[in-house]
């Protein structure tokens, strides 16, 4: 398939955005990406929106966003795979441009979650589990990852403190990211004093619901090569699935969808885990990041706890991970998350990440999980 490049990136502020509608959030990220790409909006020949529709009062989001961007009559549509909806949007545009059907597309991940009350969100998210046999027992989203955590701790001896060290790292970097929801550092002691959510998780093991948007402008190789600014190439693009029900998973210590997607993405890009200089992984809960280290091959299976304890995922370690603060401190506007990850890696590969810049980053990775691993999208990105 023809190469597809990212020629523009934009990222809005994540948080409780009671000041804006979802289309206004989308516009913030879009405007920044258009300015960054230095292109004429008239050259955008289609828009793909990554979002999870049930959180919005507005039905059929792409229409209202496309109108607000002023891009009628160009086509638009939505992709939905829970928390991986943003990466699905990028994949859809990548296919659209790679096939020759489009030349330049805007991909916008956007989500307004705070239109709903917290119990409603808990109920909605719990139903990312299988509703016929699991949700009838009152399962929640944190509960599923807590089942993974308990299993991982039992199988590999992963310690409670190691889980929280993930949160400490991500808050450390989030404190250095002006777009993050929480821009302050935390300590293990503070995290251990927070309210229980679903054992062993406490509040600080969990990411926060947020509103926000991110945007990338993708272009064909021909157009990207003439771009005014730097180009980052989408060289490994993979996605994979696992059963909706945890009852049909091989084990509760990793995500088979992430193992499979990363295997394919590495192969497509002709790289291995050791070549990844910086990664954005899906840390909706602390255990999710530890499982990601293992699923992506940054360390051996079962060694994820030791990996964070030894600070291997800090800048200066073997694979810096979530040095923008991750979902943990950026917040998790679910449809926007995947695009936000790609924006951050593009920024790193362009050398524009400021005080959280990973030196000599030439190859980066994103790992965006939908639900509890039902879907996983992995991208390998490379700078020019």
């Amino acid at each position, binding site marked *: 398939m023809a190469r597809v490049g990212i020629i523009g990136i934009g990222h809005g502020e994540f948080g409780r955005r009671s000041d804006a509608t979802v289309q206004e959030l989308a516009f913030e990220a879009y405007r920044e990406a258009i300015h960054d790409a230095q292109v004429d909006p008239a050259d955008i020949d289609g828009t793909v929106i990554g979002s999870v529709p049930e959180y919005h009062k507005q039905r059929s989001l792409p229409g209202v966003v496309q109108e607000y961007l002023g891009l009628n009559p160009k086509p638009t549509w939505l992709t939905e795979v829970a928390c991986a909806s943003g990466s699905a949007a990028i994949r859809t545009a990548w296919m659209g441009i790679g096939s020759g059907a489009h030349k330049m597309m805007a991909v916008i991940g956007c989500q307004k979650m705070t239109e709903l009350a917290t119990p409603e969100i808990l109920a909605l998210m719990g*139903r990312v589990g299988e509703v016929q046999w699991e*949700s*009838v027992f*009152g399962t*929640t989203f944190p*509960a599923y990852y807590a089942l993974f955590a308990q299993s991982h701790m039992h199988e590999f001896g992963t310690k409670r403190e190691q889980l929280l060290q993930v949160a400490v790292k991500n808050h450390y970097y989030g404190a250095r990211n002006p777009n993050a929801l929480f821009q302050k550092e935390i300590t293990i002691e503070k995290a251990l004093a927070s309210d*229980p959510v679903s*054992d062993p998780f406490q509040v600080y093991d969990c990411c926060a619901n947020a509103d926000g948007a991110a945007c990338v402008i993708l272009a064909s190789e021909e157009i990207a090569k003439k771009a005014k600014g730097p180009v980052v190439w989408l060289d490994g693009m993979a996605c994979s699935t696992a059963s909706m029900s945890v*009852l049909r998973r091989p084990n509760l210590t990793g995500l088979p969808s992430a193992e499979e997607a990363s295997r394919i993405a590495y192969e497509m890009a002709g790289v291995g885990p050791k070549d990844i200089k910086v990664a954005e992984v899906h840390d909706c809960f602390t255990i999710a990041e530890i499982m990601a280290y293992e699923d992506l091959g940054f360390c051996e299976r079962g060694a994820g706890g030791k990996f964070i304890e030894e600070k291997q995922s800090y800048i200066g370690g073997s694979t810096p991970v979530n040095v923008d603060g991750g979902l943990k401190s950026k917040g998790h506007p679910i449809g926007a998350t995947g695009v936000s990850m790609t924006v951050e890696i593009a920024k790193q590969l362009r050398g524009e990440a400021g005080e959280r810049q990973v030196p000599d980053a030439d190859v980066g990775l994103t790992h965006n999980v939908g639900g509890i691993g039902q879907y996983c999208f992995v991208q390998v990105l490379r700078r020019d």
Partner: protein
Amino acid sequence: MFKWFGKVNFSPYTKVTDFADHLKDGHLMASKCKQCGQESFPPKADCSKCLSGEFEFTEYDGQATLLSFTKIHAAPTGFEDTVPYTVGVVDLKDGGRLLAWFGESIAESDIKIGMDLQVVPQIFEEIKDIKVYYSLEKPGTTWSKV
């Protein structure tokens, strides 16, 4: 009537609706494909192996071991009055898995991954229309019809 299954039921319509009737009578049923014999728990009406839509129920004895568990403190809508509650995922000896609450026969401090458990059919006594579920109990616990 599958709407009997669970305190809050999200999917009352299913081709395996008789599962709830069997559970009310004290039987834990898996599905078995009439064409290729593939068994499934949770039960399925359709076989993803041979694509047949013909199935029958086969009884499982409910002996199980604990794969993982968590105590839920923050509940979703519909479960606010029962929080906190502990759910476990078990491997059934006969095959497949299920997720359920721990019953009163097990003290919280005794819950350990790998422990032997017995899945026992249950009826919500406080709910007027018949509502059935199953719970995780000490091995040897039996269900007796009210």
